[in-house]
Structures are given as structure tokens and as C-alpha cells.
């Protein structure tokens, strides 16, 4: 067989059939379900008298609209949606990791931590950040509710063959920087639409040097470059992370799996439709200044001037973004004051993210005017962080320590910003109103969020390490 990319190997392994004149049908190995994008899908099954085809490959959790403070769900609509998920899982025989089970959490945090996310799989979920799971060499992508229904009913999806883009990182990641800085820089280079129609494969020494948590941060944000999926070839780091987790194979099956998984690499001579190189040798911590993740700059830069953009559409977009963000061209990013700080989300709420932020705030205090919260990615991350005493470090520094959930990343629960609030956030989207109507989001790494909390404005976190 001719040389193939990692993506193509996983794709080929999952083509159910590919008749001429119709889209190939792709088999789905794991379907992750949550409360927000599934009710209408289950309703569709009911209306047509259909069952869930493979409940053994389908698992649900509660994450998007759950409160992160103790007590019952006060929001009636949210409660009804959570009740609907519970009922749907009961009726259709789907396993639910409900709030309070101790295994709940953001869907893209729990899949990997339970060992359900494995190399070479196809994984879908009604959530665009499903790309996260690509960090394990899985082909994982977000789908809409109709496709959720389709996968529930058929365990498959018709898919057009995407194009492939290799994103090669060059150089060595400077001290104190993180995967978030790498991926923000890559998005700045590729653009928010540059990945449309592509599956990305991240490669290069800096990627190989990353932990699984960090690789998940990178793949998570593939969708912010417009790509539905991003992948990283599995290696010993991947296998060490997976071994012994509940969903991972054991004994002889583990050895067999390793042998198969080691073959999941892009062959020498395989070609990509596009290759992008991102040199990170002199990378600085990244801060977004606009209303999409591609509007990003190093922390020592200034707010850009719309006049510097030659393309009239781009100039318009920058002008609009600065108006929304209430920023003046030429302002140093370090002079921008923040009101709120959010450490959390499927991008940056894993144990390693919390460790980095905790180390930075230990023995220091959050600035007087800043309200800062930490929301662990899962109940398990929360337990582990508490076992390590991270919650105490955060609380002594003036952070609020919350229960797991998506929280302020999208503000479906009561964790929302007030109009005009400016937030340093470790999440993935700085869209208008994303964290609350009229709110202003700046995307940063956990270290940069911690630094902003302490200083009350953006600051180079590496100076505080």
C-alpha cells in the first residue's frame, strides 16, 4: 500500500462502505453525549421508533449547564434539560456519568481520563471541541444534533473525505511557555478559517516533547482554526498516559493494542494537501485582543491599528473587534486591566493546567479589583487537585474553587460575566458575548491567567515563575 498519513490510516480503518456516487459511511467507535445537544436527537429516535444501535459505545455526562457551586440546579430550564438527559439515558440504555457520580466532568476531559479515548479510534460528540481527543491519534470531531441522532441510530456517519494539513512546529518551546501559547500562535498564522475542510496533524519535536494534557490543549483548539479535527501520532507518552486507565486494554490485549498503535504514524513519503510551519523558538506568551482566536499577539505587543491592515474586510473586522473590546490601537497589552479571571474549560482544566497556575499563585494574592475562579475539568481532576493541596493554594491566593463543568467558557450556567467585564480566560473562544452578553474575553494560558489575576492586568507570566 502506498504511504499514508495518520489520518488516512484511521479513516481507512473505519470506512463501512463507499459506493460510487454517495458519501463514504464512517463507523464511529465512541459516541460522547451531553445534555445540551442531545435532547432533540433522542426525541428524533422516539418519533421514528428507533433504538440506540450500540449503547456499549455510547456514554453520557452532564457538563455544559451544570452549576459549579454546591446545591441543586436553580435554573429551571437547565434542570429540565438535565432531567431529559437522565430520562433519555434510562429509556435508551445509555450509561450516564451524572453529576455527583464522582466521574462527571467536561466530556473532553473525562473521555481521556477514563481511558475511553484511544489511538486509532473514531470519536464524535455534539460539541465542536471533540477535536481534543485527536491528541491520542484518534479521528475525533464535533457534530450537530441531527448527526448525534444519526450516530445514535446507526453508529456511523456519511462523511466526505477531508483534506489534510500538517502543522509542523519548529524550534524549542521557550521556558515558561505552554501548549496554549503554541496553538494560539498557530491559529494566528493559519487564521480562523484556514483549516476549513482539513484534518490537521500536529508534528515536530516540540509536539513530541508535550505531555498528553498539553497535546489535548493543542488538538482542542483545532476547530478555532476552522478544522473539525486535529491529530497527533501516538507514542510512548500516549501509551504511558493510557496504561491502567479503566477503558484501556489489559494484559495480552494491551500488548496487542500497543503493536497496532505503534503503526499509527504518518508514513515517510506520505503527502499532505497543505503544510504549515510554526517556528516557536522566540515565542512569547500569547494574548488575544479581538473577538476571534486568530486575533492574537505576544504579551509584549500593542493593540493593533486597523490602519495597518491592507485588506478592507480585515480592517473592518479589526475595527469592529476593537470597538467591541473597548481597546485603543497602540495600547500595550500589559496595560489592559482585567476584572475577572477564569481558569477552566476543556482547553485548560486538566490537572497539569491547575498545577502550573497554582505554582504561580502560591504565596501571592489576587489583585484587589479582580474576581478569579478555578473550575476543574472533572470531578476526578478536582479530587486529585485537592489531594495535592492545590485548592488551598488557590483559595489562599483569593481564587474561588469550584465544582467541575464547562462553566464560564460559554456561560450556560450562572458563571457569566457582566456586560463590559474584561476576563483573562484559559478557554477557547473570545467571540462577542461568549462569556456573557457584552463581556470581553482575552484567551491566555493558565500561567498567563494566573499572572493577570495577581497583577490585575496582563503580564508576562514567565517573569513570575
Amino acid at each position, binding site marked *: 500500500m502506498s504511504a499514508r498519513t495518520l489520518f488516512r490510516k484511521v479513516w481507512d480503518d473505519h470506512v463501512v462502505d463507499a459506493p460510487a456516487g454517495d458519501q463514504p459511511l464512517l463507523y464511529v467507535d465512541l459516541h460522547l453525549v451531553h445534555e*445540551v445537544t442531545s435532547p432533540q436527537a433522542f426525541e428524533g429516535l422516539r418519533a421514528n421508533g428507533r433504538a440506540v444501535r450500540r449503547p456499549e459505545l455510547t456514554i453520557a455526562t452532564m457538563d455544559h449547564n451544570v452549576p459549579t457551586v454546591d446545591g441543586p440546579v436553580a435554573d429551571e430550564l437547565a434542570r429540565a434539560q438535565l432531567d431529559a438527559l437522565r430520562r433519555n439515558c434510562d429509556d435508551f440504555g445509555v450509561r450516564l456519568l451524572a453529576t455527583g457520580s464522582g466521574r462527571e466532568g467536561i466530556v473532553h476531559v473525562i473521555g481521556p481520563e477514563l481511558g475511553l479515548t484511544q489511538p486509532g479510534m473514531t470519536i464524535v460528540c455534539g460539541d465542536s471541541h471533540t477535536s481534543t481527543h485527536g491528541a491520542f491519534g484518534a479521528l475525533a470531531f464535533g457534530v450537530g444534533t441531527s448527526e448525534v441522532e444519526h450516530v445514535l441510530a446507526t453508529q456511523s456517519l456519511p462523511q466526505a473525505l477531508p483534506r489534510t494539513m500538517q502543522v509542523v512546529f519548529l524550534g524549542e518551546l521557550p521556558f515558561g511557555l505552554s501548549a496554549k501559547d503554541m496553538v494560539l500562535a498557530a491559529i494566528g498564522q493559519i487564521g480562523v478559517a484556514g483549516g476549513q475542510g482539513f484534518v490537521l496533524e500536529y508534528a515536530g519535536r516540540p509536539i513530541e516533547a508535550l505531555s498528553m494534557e498539553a497535546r489535548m490543549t493543542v488538538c482542542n483548539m483545532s476547530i478555532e482554526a476552522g478544522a473539525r479535527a486535529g491529530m497527533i501520532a501516538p507514542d510512548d507518552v500516549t501509551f504511558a498516559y493510557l496504561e491502567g486507565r479503566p477503558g484501556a486494554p489489559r494484559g495480552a490485549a494491551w500488548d496487542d493494542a500497543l503493536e497496532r498503535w505503534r503503526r499509527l504514524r504518518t508514513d515517510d513519503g506520505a503527502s499532505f494537501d497543505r503544510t504549515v510551519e510554526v517556528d516557536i523558538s522566540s515565542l512569547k506568551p500569547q494574548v488575544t485582543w479581538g473577538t476571534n482566536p486568530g486575533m492574537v499577539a505576544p504579551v509584549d505587543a500593542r493593540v493593533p491599528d486597523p490602519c495597518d491592515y491592507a485588506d478592507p474586510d480585515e480592517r473592518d473586522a479589526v475595527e469592529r473587534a476593537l470597538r467591541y473590546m473597548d481597546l485603543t490601537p497602540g495600547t500595550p497589552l500589559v496595560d489592559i486591566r482585567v476584572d475577572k479571571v477564569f481558569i477552566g474549560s476543556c482547553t485548560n482544566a486538566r490537572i497539569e493546567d491547575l498545577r502550573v497556575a497554582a505554582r504561580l499563585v502560591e504565596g501571592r494574592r489576587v489583585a484587589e479589583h479582580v474576581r478569579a475562579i478555578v473550575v476543574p475539568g472533572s470531578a476526578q481532576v478536582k479530587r486529585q487537585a485537592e489531594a495535592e493541596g492545590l485548592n488551598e493554594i488557590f483559595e489562599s491566593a483569593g481564587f474561588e474553587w469550584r465544582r467541575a463543568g464547562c462553566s464560564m467558557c460559554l456561560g450556560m450556567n450562572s458563571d457569566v460575566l457582566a456586560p463590559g467585564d474584561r476576563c483573562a480566560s484559559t478557554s477557547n473562544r473570545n467571540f462577542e458575548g461568549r462569556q456573557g452578553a457584552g463581556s470581553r474575553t482575552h484567551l491566555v494560558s493558565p500561567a498567563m491567567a494566573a499572572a493577570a489575576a495577581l497583577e490585575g492586568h496582563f503580564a508576562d507570566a514567565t517573569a513570575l515563575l
Partner: protein
Amino acid sequence: MRALRSVTGTVAVLDRADVDTDQIIPKQFLKRIERAGYGAFLFHDWMQDPGFALRDPAVEGAAILVAGRNFGCGSSREHAAWALEDYGFRVVIAPSYGDIFRTNSIVSGLAPVVLDPGQIAEVREALRGRNELTVDLERLEVRHPDGLRLAFELDAHAQETLVRGLDHVARTLTRAGSIEQYERDHTPRFDVRALAL
């Protein structure tokens, strides 16, 4: 799902690039468990601005939305397609779309038509004379009453889904034999119901 063979109607123009699905339908409306009724919340925050394009009485009841590149990027929320469809749009015309939004639109009976920026400029010029456009999904052609005709491309799968208003699950179930064969040939990695989590 409604079959869309050809759509003739008024056109609203939303002259911005990278309009994300958070703008099309903000998060507070995603808690509903129904599939209908999202039109009332379409572009909720932007609708507060009296100068917003869709507030113009001249485009009330518009069936076609002309938008900028990368329309519907971001979140996978299908509610965005449902909101546009429920509001009355049957077709969006843009240079490009967010991948997930594009698929969501097709299965929701909202046609995502691609024209390049030059062609969109021609359409907008024609609309200045008379705001009416026909998007023919059988012939894959955009027509203006003053004579402008532009061909566009749409893959056969999407075209068939839209024009026939097909139930995509039923359509895949005609391939159930292949799915069963695949399942016979491949052992699942686990049974999540049996795992000690």
C-alpha cells in the same frame, strides 16, 4: 424535512466575515429541549441594535441571507441552523462556511450556497435594482429577475438531501447491511456499560 427545490424571495445582507454560531444563537437559548421556536432568538444580541441589517423593514420576511466568509464558524450548536430556518431563511449565500454549520444546515433544510466574493458583489449590485433572487437547487443556479445568472456547486449528497428533503437516518439505514458486516469484522474496544469507572 421540507424539500427545497427552488427558493425565490427577498434577500438580507449581513456584511461581516467570521460570523460565529454564538452570534447566530447565544448560549442562553440552548437550554430548551424542543427543536422549534428558535427564530425568535436569531442574532439575539445584534438584534438589539436598531441599525442591524435584519432590523431593516425592507428585508422583513427575507428567505435568503447573503453573508461573509466563514459563516457559522465556532460551536457545533445546530440551533444556529434551526434559528435561521425558523426565522424564515431557506438559503444562505456566502463564500465559505464553518464545516459543522454547513452539515447542520443541510440536514435542517437550510441550503448553504457558496459563491465567491466577486459573484456575491454581482448579486448585491443586482439587488440594488430590485431585491429579489431565485436560488434553484435543482439546476444549481442563482438568478436575478434582471438577468443575472450564476452557477454554483453543491455536492450530490447535499443536493439530494435538500431537494428531496430526505431523512438522513433512513437513508443510511438502506446501508444497514454494510454496517452489520463492518460490525462482524471489528470487535468493539469495550462495552462502556460494563466498565468499572
